[in-house]
């Protein structure tokens, strides 16, 4: 775009001329420039200069007056510039006011100035305005003078403007008025000029098409001066179309130059049109206009020797339009092109990318270059035109050139012949380095495409650009770009394109002397899947045709190089590629490397787990896609356990790989053949063993080829073998690395080496179930049978069998406080070893359900034991896990540990079930009103009478399968609770701990009485101390050291109430047949009220009785009524006394004694008792059954 002259690139600006009063010119012209629309000023100090300005009106366009068939050119080169800088549209004459008001000489001078101005501008139709500049101390200008001035100047009143530069307040306004007046005059001038020329077109008597083009152009330019863009566009298009018509018609100039002129003109017209379209935002129209333009001129190649001119022109079209598009898209950013399908021919969105035009500009420029080269080669012989070439200059007409002939002062322009012109153009073309230009264009396109993520297009541009760099010898730039685009082609599998790029890269590294790169690129090329001829035969880059033969050539070349074959010396290209004797070349092939095609290593262990010390098989498979068979000299297999590494040497090559002394002790295998055929797996199977447990993984396989090259392939598992990127697309048979069909799917490059079998026994000796509350001991015994135990650790875990956990925070049982139902309390060391000693230097960590202790060193054959102390708070089965981890070697470095695991389920049972119940003394029954009530409400809370002695019987049942010993049973009252009752019983300790066999019940009787007037009685907690019976050891165990288990049970609170009535019977403990006795029934009234009692006594067959059967008695308050009967027993044995029943009227309560209290034993005759009264104190504790 920059090659166009300034006047073409910017819209024209009105030009006005100022004459006189030079001191004001700066002020006015500055203001005019900032005015809207701006006005350029042409300042002339005084009137005499006007003549100089317009004196070159020598050629007033002779064609306009007398149309002649021969027009020398379409339009003049400087016409536009002239109108923009030299031909003002109007003339403003500035006169100081004192010239008007002063002496007549000045007035006369003014008048003569006006006359000369008028004379100058008359023929040119230039507008005229008079500006009167008011002086500092000037007198008022009379009206007459003004009219005289107007008449003299022949202008309208409004074109005589008074400007007072000293009136600063109004200066701006008056300057604006001046500007608008000037604008008005200028518009009028350009309109008139435009109309004048338009009339010439419309008259149709212009018989030269060139003139029509010229007139249209002028009209358009005048319209542009007026900012009438629509008309400008219309006439530019008109000119353009008219010009296109004369292409085949005109014969004015020699053919080549004719075409050049037309193209130059059309280029300018097109530029104007595109600019106008783009500025008005009509991007789609501009694009389609461009396409039309391009298509119209594309075929106008011209004479063969001038073809390059055509391509250059085409290239420029694309470049300029691309630049225009880019600038306009910068201005109107974001407005994406829409309405693609508006025109009849669908447009591609691609035509909206400036990069597209740059790319094509580069393409045409390269066409131009090759055409130019052809022309140069043809015209090389003729040099006689050199003198002509030097004198060629652009002629006055646009797009034309002429020969400048200087003969002394006489300068003459001679027309050129086509040969001369071509010569000139060729010499001009030689001056430019097209490739730099092409690179710049491609780079623009490349970057532009890349920035919008159009990668393939940008790759293509990059490819062309890199090719130019390559041709220019800029290897580093070329290589960089080639590398970038090669990765895209690799990814998408465009083998032919990749082949070509790699060919360039190979040459780049050859030129750079980068031998490693050269080998890598060559190997990759040789391994590419270009088996069949892809049709790319000619016009290939340095890669050569993409076919199998070429692959083989590349293959041979690179292997000759690395094997150090002497064939290099003959090839002068490879002079800078040499491998010195001690230089080695290692290529790394990882999972993403393109060299995976060259060599791929798959390694599979035949077993997924192995024992240490035992051997397993390992298969190493190699695959290569190189076209020819490769002979490998040696393989090195590397593992993560470096002592497993081994070598495989080629049996066919005798000691070609020297194993250095340092690694002599490594294992070396010899394979019969290590030749790697194309696309065929080389499978090698060896056994391998390790002593170290853990993971054994094959890391890499290094293949040594020749004395210099080694290829290090990362080992891959067959199970996760990624398919080769490019070859999978080929229609060839897929082979598998291992023949074993299972290993193909599951084979891994790593195996797990198990740990050694433990040679230590772990015993958990538990015989009986655990009892809740006791400290349960679980003996753990370690017996070493073959291994020494070093740095042993014993881990203990308690796990709920049901999986519910040993922990229940929501439980509000009394022992929920310590939150664990089963707890590991501690671990006691082996017998004879003190606990504290164990603590001091060994790890010992005990938590509620987890324990960790260290085990001392146990020599082979020794044993060690300890006891786990576990306490159950709840009956619950648990699983006990004990695991021993140890190292069989004392060596600290060898960190392999061996593990032994044992587990055992242990049930926890409740040992003792406690029960209790209350009794009144024998044959004494109180009336408890609440009890009667409760009977209906089925509430089980106990009630006791107040002020009475009650009996509490506590029973403890052994529910285990073991005999237990009891130590004591007592009722403890909480310390803080108020003592509300008195509890009496015998001594707490049971002197000789009784044995409680399974299922047996132990009972103890307490007497409870309360005389406090409260309704609730809290009795306290029942405490029972017991332990397991030790059986035969019982005797020897000292009672003091034995730990007793304390089982507690809180007794529920009981209600206490005052009974209104108490009935008690008195009767002898036994009777004798025929011996009378008295049976008393006492009814005691505890209330302050009179109690009416109805009672009855039934007959009994076994007795004869005397007394009332039925009666009603009144018992006085706080007194007692006694009923007495005399009874004579008739029958021996246990007999029921006569049935007594009574009713309290007040309480509507009936009473009948229970059967047990109502019976008595009758002896047939008076019994004789031995006076053997038991001496022990066990009267109160009765062992039942």
């Amino acid at each position, binding site marked *: 775009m920059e090659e166009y002259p300034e006047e073409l690139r910017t819209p024209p600006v009105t030009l006005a001329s100022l004459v006189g009063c030079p001191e004001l010119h700066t002020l006015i012209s500055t203001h005019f420039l900032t005015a809207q629309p701006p006005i350029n000023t042409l300042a002339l100090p005084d009137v005499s200069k006007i003549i100089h300005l317009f004196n070159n009106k020598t050629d007033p366009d002779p064609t306009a007056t007398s149309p002649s068939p021969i027009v020398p050119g379409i339009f003049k080169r400087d016409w536009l510039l002239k109108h923009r800088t030299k031909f003002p549209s109007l003339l403003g004459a500035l006169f100081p006011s004192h010239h008007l008001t002063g002496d007549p000489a000045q007035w006369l001078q003014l008048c003569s100035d006006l006359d000369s101005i008028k004379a100058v501008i008359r023929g040119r139709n230039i507008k005229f305005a008079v500006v009167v500049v008011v002086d500092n101390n000037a007198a008022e200008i009379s009206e007459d003078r003004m009219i005289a001035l107007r008449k003299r100047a022949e202008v309208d009143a409004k074109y005589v403007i008074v400007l007072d530069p000293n009136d600063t307040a109004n200066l701006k306004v008056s300057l604006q008025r001046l500007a608008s007046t000037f604008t008005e005059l200028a518009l009028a001038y350009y309109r008139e000029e435009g109309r004048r020329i338009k009339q010439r077109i419309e008259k149709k008597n212009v018989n030269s098409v060139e003139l029509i083009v010229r007139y249209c152009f002028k009209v358009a330019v005048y319209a542009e001066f007026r900012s009438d863009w629509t008309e400008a566009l219309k006439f530019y298009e008109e000119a353009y179309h008219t010009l296109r018509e004369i292409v085949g018609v005109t014969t004015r100039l020699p053919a080549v130059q004719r075409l050049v002129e037309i193209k130059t003109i059309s280029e300018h017209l097109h530029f104007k049109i595109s600019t106008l379209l783009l500025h008005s935002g009509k991007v789609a129209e501009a694009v389609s206009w461009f396409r039309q333009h391009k298509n119209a001129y594309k075929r106008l190649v011209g004479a063969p020797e001038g073809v390059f001119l055509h391509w250059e022109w085409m290239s420029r079209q694309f470049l300029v339009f691309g630049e225009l598009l880019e600038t306009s898209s910068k201005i109107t950013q974001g407005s994406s092109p829409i309405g693609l399908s508006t025109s009849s021919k669908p447009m591609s969105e*691609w*035509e909206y990318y400036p990069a597209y035009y740059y790319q094509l500009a580069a*393409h045409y420029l390269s066409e131009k270059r090759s055409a130019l080269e052809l022309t140069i080669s043809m015209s090389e012989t003729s040099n006689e035109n050199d003198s002509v070439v030097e004198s060629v200059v652009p002629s006055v007409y646009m797009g034309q050139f002429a020969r400048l002939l200087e003969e002394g002062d006489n300068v003459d322009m001679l027309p050129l012949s086509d040969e001369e012109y071509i010569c000139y153009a060729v010499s001009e073309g030689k001056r430019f380095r097209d490739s730099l230009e092409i690179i710049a264009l491609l780079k623009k396109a490349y970057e532009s495409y890349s920035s919008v993520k159009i990668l393939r*297009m940008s790759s*293509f541009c990059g490819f062309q650009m890199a090719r130019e760099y390559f041709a220019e010898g800029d290897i580093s730039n070329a290589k960089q770009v080639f590398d970038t685009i090669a990765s895209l082609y690799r990814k998408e599998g465009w083998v032919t394109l990749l082949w*070509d790029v790699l060919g360039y890269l190979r040459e780049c590294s050859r030129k750079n002397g980068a031998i490693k790169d050269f080998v890598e690129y060559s190997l990759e090329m040789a391994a590419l899947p270009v088996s069949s001829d*892809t049709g790319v035969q000619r*016009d290939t880059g340095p890669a050569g045709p993409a076919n199998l033969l070429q692959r083989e050539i590349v293959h041979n070349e690179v292997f000759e190089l690395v094997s150090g074959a002497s064939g290099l010396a003959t090839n002068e290209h490879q002079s800078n590629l040499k491998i010195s004797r001690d230089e080695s070349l290692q290529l790394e092939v990882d999972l993403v490397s393109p060299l995976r095609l060259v060599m791929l290593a798959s390694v599979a262990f035949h077993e997924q787990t192995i024992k240490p010390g035992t051997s397993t098989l390992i298969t190493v498979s190699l695959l290569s896609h190189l076209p020819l068979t490769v002979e490998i000299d040696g393989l090195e297999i590397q593992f993560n356990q470096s002592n497993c590494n081994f070598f495989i040497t080629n049996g066919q090559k005798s000691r070609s790989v020297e194993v250095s002394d340092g690694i002599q002790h490594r294992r070396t295998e010899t394979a019969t053949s290590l030749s790697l055929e194309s696309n065929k797996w080389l499978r090698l199977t060896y056994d391998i063993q390790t002593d170290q447990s853990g993971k054994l993984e094959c890391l890499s396989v290094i293949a040594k080829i020749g004395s210099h090259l080694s290829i290090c392939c990362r080992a891959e598992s067959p199970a996760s073998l990624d398919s080769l990127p490019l070859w999978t*697309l080929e*229609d060839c048979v897929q082979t598998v690395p291992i023949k074993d069909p299972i290993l193909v799917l599951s084979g891994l490059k790593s195996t797990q080496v198990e740990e050694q079998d433990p040679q230590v026994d772990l015993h958990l000796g538990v015989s009986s179930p655990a009892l809740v509350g006791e400290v349960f001991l679980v003996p753990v015994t370690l017996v070493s049978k073959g291994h020494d135990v070093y740095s042993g650790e014993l881990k203990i875990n308690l796990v709920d069998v049901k999986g519910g956990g040993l922990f229940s925070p929501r439980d509000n049982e009394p022992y929920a406080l310590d939150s664990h139902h089963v707890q590991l309390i501690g671990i006691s060391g082996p017998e004879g070893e003190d606990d504290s000693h164990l603590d001091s230097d060994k790890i010992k960590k005990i938590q509620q359900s987890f324990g960790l202790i260290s085990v001392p060193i146990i020599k082979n054959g020794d044993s060690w034991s300890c006891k786990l102390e576990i306490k159950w708070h709840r009956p619950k089965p648990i699983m006990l896990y004990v695991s021993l981890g140890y190292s069989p070697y004392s060596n600290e470095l060898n960190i392999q540990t061996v593990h032994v695991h044992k587990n055992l389920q242990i049930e926890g049972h409740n040992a003792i079930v406690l029960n209790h119940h209350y009794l009144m003394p024998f044959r004494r029954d109180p009336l408890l009103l609440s009890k009667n009530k409760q009977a209906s409400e089925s509430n089980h809370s106990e009630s006791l009478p107040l002020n009475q002695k009650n009996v509490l019987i506590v029973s403890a049942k052994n529910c285990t399968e073991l005999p237990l010993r009891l130590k004591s049973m007592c009722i403890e009252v909480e310390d803080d609770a108020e003592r509300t009752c008195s509890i009496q019983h015998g001594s707490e300790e049971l002197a000789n701990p009784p044995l409680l066999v399974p299922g047996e019940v132990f009972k103890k009787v307490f007497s409870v009485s309360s005389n406090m007037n409260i309704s609730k009685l809290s009795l306290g907690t029942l405490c029972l101390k017991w332990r397991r019976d030790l059986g035969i050891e019982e005797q020897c165990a000292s009672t003091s050291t034995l730990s007793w288990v304390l089982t507690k049970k809180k007794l529920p609170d009981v209600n206490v109430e005052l009974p209104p009535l108490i009935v008690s019977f008195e009767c002898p403990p036994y009777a004798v047949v025929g011996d009378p006795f008295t049976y008393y029934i006492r009814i005691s009234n505890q209330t302050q009220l009179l109690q009416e009692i109805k009672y009855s006594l039934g007959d009994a067959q076994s007795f004869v009785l005397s007394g009332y059967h039925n009666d009603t008695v009144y018992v006085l308050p706080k007194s007692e009524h006694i009923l007495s009967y005399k009874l004579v027993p008739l029958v021996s044995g246990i007999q029921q006394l006569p049935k007594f029943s009574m009713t309290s009227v007040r309480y509507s309560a009936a009473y009948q004694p229970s059967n047990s209290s109502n019976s008595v034993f009758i002896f047939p005759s008076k019994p004789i008792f031995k006076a053997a009264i038991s001496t022990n104190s066990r009267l109160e504790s009765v062992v039942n059954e």
Partner: protein
Amino acid sequence: MIVCVAVVGHQNNPLYIQSFTEADDALKLHHIVHCSLDVVDERVNNPKRSGPMLNETFLGLLYPIENFKVYGYLTNTKVKFILVTTDLDVKDADVRNFFRRFHAAYVDAVSNPFHVPGKKITSRTFAERVSTIVKSFGFSSAG
């Protein structure tokens, strides 16, 4: 005249590419086909731009370059067909017709039980059929 036809797979990898030109620009045609994938991508990813061509297999003119015009076609299995022609004035109907026949040939080729999907098409029958279709391109505007 058709100078190049191509079948391009899911990963934008070439499955079949054949040029029908005597000139030396086979490699260039490969480049052009490869570049046209950008246009296909853009069409597919910004369907709103192409407006009425939504849901249509025929993608129309992809882009004009130098002396070529590139047309595209996208099957329902996302396999792309690319056509490069030197004709400046091509009827859309002709191209559509071409692609229809080409598609049929492609379907027959991949229906071969010995063809592995996703691999390059090496069938000789397919190649012959394609060259027949290509040869008949200019002349058979009727059918």
